[in-house]
């Protein structure tokens, strides 16, 4: 059985993020185009393009997701977040036409998760964005399932490179089911092999030294 020395926390799908998940932490580093709705006094040194003492109202910047989420509040109007290109009207029609063609890894490896986080920012296009995310997932599901269940003992990098990170997780679980079944059928499941933990901790020195 394949046991790891720690149990990784999975990324939260949808509008919540898991605080402890590494995927979500990397996701929150994605930058979003943002427009300030009020001035930020005495923070002008952060804005390299102008030499002003403070950041004026209405200036456009790129802030990471974690900062935008923290500063965003509808009532106080501190920031307004614009949708990144991939979630706008033009790309949405492409996704609705044929989800399988798009290289989701190039579009930002966290397409689904970032899209779900964008729904926090109360844009008028929210229902369309959510609908497109769902339809894209459903459209690409078939291909992910077929490729994960049929690629045994092959180099899967060509299949995986166009997948978003959520789909990569699904691909991995499909592969593990397939590998488990195939190794059982070959009879490898009953062979006793040294656990990967023991090999990692290098407790087998005597065996290695003996000729």
């Amino acid at each position, binding site marked *: 059985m394949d046991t790891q020395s720690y149990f990784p926390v999975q990324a939260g799908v949808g509008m919540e993020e898991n605080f402890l998940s590494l995927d979500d932490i990397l996701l929150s580093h994605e930058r979003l185009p943002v427009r300030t709705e009020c001035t930020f006094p005495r923070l002008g040194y952060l804005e390299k393009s102008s030499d002003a003492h403070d950041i004026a109202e209405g200036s456009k910047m790129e802030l990471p997701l974690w900062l935008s989420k923290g500063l965003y509040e509808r009532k106080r109007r501190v920031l307004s977040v614009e949708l990144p290109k991939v979630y706008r009207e033009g790309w949405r029609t492409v996704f609705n036409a044929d989800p399988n063609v798009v290289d989701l890894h190039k579009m930002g490896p966290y397409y689904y998760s970032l899209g779900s986080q964008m729904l926090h920012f109360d844009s008028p296009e929210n229902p369309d964005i959510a609908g497109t995310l769902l339809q894209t997932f459903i459209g690409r*599901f078939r291909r992910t399932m077929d490729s994960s269940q049929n690629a045994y003992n092959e180099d899967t990098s060509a299949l995986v490179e166009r997948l978003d990170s959520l789909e990569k997780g699904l691909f991995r679980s499909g592969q593990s089911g397939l590998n488990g079944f195939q190794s059982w059928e070959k009879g490898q499941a009953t062979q006793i092999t040294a656990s990967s933990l023991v090999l990692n901790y290098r407790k087998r020195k005597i065996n290695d030294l003996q000729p």
Partner: protein
Amino acid sequence: MDPSEVEFLAEKETVKIIPNFSLDKIYLIGGDLGPFNPGLPVDVPVWLALNLKQRQKCRIVPPEWMDVEKLEEMRELERKEDMFTPVPSPYYMELTKLLLNHASDNIPKADDIRTLVKDIWDTRIAKLRLSADSFISQQEAHAKLDNLTLMEINTIRSFLLDSLNCMYKLRSNLQPGSSKGQAMDY
């Protein structure tokens, strides 16, 4: 669940053997195993049958369904039907592997049987994937699974459950306000 665990559960099925030793009735926790007389067939669980076979104390009689013509009929039926057909035994895959690995000398046409069972398995797995795909693409809430064996369910379980989870969460994006206040605990 591991395939080895499913195999362990499969070893509880009974199979007929012909012992070459004699022993009185033995009383085990799971039930009684009848008196063993050389040359007379007796029903035992598969784990005991394999153990006795490995110690060369018995001969295993193949189960009724493990016959070339019957399996060919089942394969044709499986290919014609869209739904899942009733299986020869709820653990056909595991029993085939165990019996053909340890007792292939007692089973006529072992290679043909192996090929036929693999064909039946492949057809059923293909149907399972088709129905999983239509399940997701039509966003159904529940599906009916007749005549599926534990091994088949086991190979697709983790993938299907993870993707249904993702689909559920993406779907709950469409209703804002209903997803606030959910907590994850570890």
